[in-house]
């Protein structure tokens, strides 16, 4: 193992992280998300707090309870950011002090779709922001014979074609299962531009695959890592999200 990791020096971009009013010397240095060129990829602002949360869940010594808590905090931020891409209309209201406020109102129906099993870990974060949201599920597993992803099960809202879809899967490596999930959604009549794919950690390879296949679909991620290893695991990644969240 040691020789493998030596083969591939893991140097992501580093920078001073912290609020603008602090000078560079006052800010600690950390590895931040790799930049990507595609317009439809939204990376959360690389704030010190987000980096600290990611540090916590990447650490192999983090206990399961903490892993769940800190991933949930990132997921909430992801969902909040994802929701920003939904349409709104102008809406003026009267405030408790009797003045008017020219505000906005949410527009359009949404639903969540989680790619089982790890994607289900993101459902709570979605519910924390959108009470009683409909959530569909898709089970995709690697076919033993062909080594390709295969759809095993799906259960989606009937009227999904009229909804915006927040597709949930925490780790976005090659994007094999996510591509299949998007194809399922498209076959049910959901247009690409109404799908938002939320994930915690993405790889440049996955993003590249996705944007050539689905140029109008938006990806919202907390962090783009350096790349994939020979087994297609994200580097540095955080291990198996589903295992760390559910069973470890």
């Amino acid at each position: 193992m040691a020789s493998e990791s030596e083969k591939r020096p893991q140097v992501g971009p580093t920078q001073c992280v912290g609020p603008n009013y602090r000078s560079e010397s006052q800010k600690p240095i950390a590895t931040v998300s790799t930049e990507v060129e595609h317009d439809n990829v939204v990376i959360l602002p690389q704030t010190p707090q987000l980096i600290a949360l990611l540090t916590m869940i990447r650490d192999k010594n983090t206990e399961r309870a903490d892993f769940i808590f800190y991933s949930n905090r990132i997921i909430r931020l992801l969902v909040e950011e994802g929701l920003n891409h939904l349409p709104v209309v102008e809406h003026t209201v009267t405030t408790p002090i009797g003045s008017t406020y020219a505000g906005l109102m949410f527009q359009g129906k949404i639903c969540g779709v989680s790619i089982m099993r790890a994607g289900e870990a993101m459902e709570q974060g979605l519910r924390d922001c959108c009470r009683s949201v409909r959530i569909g599920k898709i089970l995709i597993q690697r076919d033993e014979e062909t080594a390709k992803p295969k759809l095993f099960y799906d259960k989606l809202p009937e009227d999904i074609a009229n909804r915006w879809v927040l597709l949930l899967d925490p780790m976005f490596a090659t994007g094999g299962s996510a591509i299949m999930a998007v194809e399922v959604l498209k076959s049910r009549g959901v247009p690409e531009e109404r799908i938002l794919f939320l994930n915690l950690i993405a790889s440049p390879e996955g993003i590249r695959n996705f944007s050539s296949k689905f140029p109008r679909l938006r990806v919202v991620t907390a962090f783009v890592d350096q790349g994939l290893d020979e087994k297609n695991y994200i580097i540095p990644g955080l291990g198996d999200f589903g295992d760390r969240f559910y069973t470890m």
Partner: protein
Amino acid sequence: MNTGIGSPTIVADNPADTIAKRVHYSPPWADLSIIGIAGSSGSGKSTLSQAIVSKLNLPWVVILSMDSYYKPLNAEASRKAFLNEYDFDSPEAIDFDALVDTLRDLKAGKRAEIPVYSFEKHQRMKETTSIYSPHVLVLEGIFALYDPRVMDLMDMRIYCEADADTCLSRRILRDVKDRGRTVDGCIKQWFGFVKPNYEKYVVPQRNHADIIVPRGIENRVAMTMVTQYIERKLLEKSTHHRAALKSLEVGYETEPLSERAIILKETPQLKSMTTLIQDIDTSSEDFIFYFDRLSCLLIEQALNNVHFKELTVETPAGNKYCGLTPKGEVSAVIILRGGATFEAGLRRVIPDCRTGRLLIQSNIRTGEPELHYLKLPKDINNHDSVLLLDAQMASGGSALMAVQVLVDHGVPQDRIVFATFSAGRVGVHRLTKVFPEITVVIGNMVSDFQDRWVEKRYFRC
């Protein structure tokens, strides 16, 4: 070495000049008024002080008894004390140095720890009681008008007088009932120490008094006089405080907001949530849900302003990641009642966050912020960062007071992050002028001087 008194260039560069230009906030407790009440043992000093304080019934008018400042006794003195042979009624028994320190601290607006003296053990107890932020302090004790350093700090000096028989009988009753002494012991002390000292040290204090009050609380005229004097002092302080707050408004229209005032980015979601929160037709259920959701974002944003340090971790696959971790503990202080609306959001982000609370209310008549209650974590001065939470900031009066309280408790300005749902320019301007190193995180900017409606909607009363 700076020798350039005559040289204009050096004078202009003197950092003291810049410091002098800094805007200063003076809380109402910065200039404490002290009223001294002296008189023979049993002359009714403490009864009089208590009557005055309970008549005013304000949390910032307090009594300090000089009994707390008896010197702790060594073994020999202690043995004598138990035999009623120690002279408690001589100025020698009082730790005037400690008393002067306390009074000077309080006068400077700082928190002071008051020793607790045990009459049963003739020792200072380990614990202390603390006094913070009184506007008026009544200092009572047989030698309240004895030490010139103490007298210099006083605004009014009172001497209580009573008939010697009355004093003796009151003293016996008190010492036997409250201080665990015997009647014999009391009488022995009276003739051995109290009476001779009375003539030698207590009576001469009459000459230092502004007022001499015979018959203690039965003397209604004197009571009213003193109470009215204190009321006038309080009014002066309040007027001064309000004028000082007002003077901090200068320049807010022209000057840009401090770079440490961070307004949440107005994303479509944030604006939609703000709209729902502001709409009077939103149900309470929705109001609370969206306020909690927004407060979560506000707390997350506030936490970007605490201090972090570098930390490299290893992932389960054995890869290294150069990340960050908070430098130390982050605690919170809630300004009641408004700040309590953030509690749900705070607990979602830091479930076990240690939380201090302070109750600041605006006086209904004058609008002046008043500090009614204060409970902070003991080691708050060691916390890496303190989030100070309030739902709204209008004039900034309570925010200023709250930050001053934290600063008085040893929290450096650059460790304070003040977070609020909405603020007006005047408030932000005042707060950042006085405390330029604190960070202010704001959900949305609103017109100046908005009434506090968020807490009413959130708590539904």
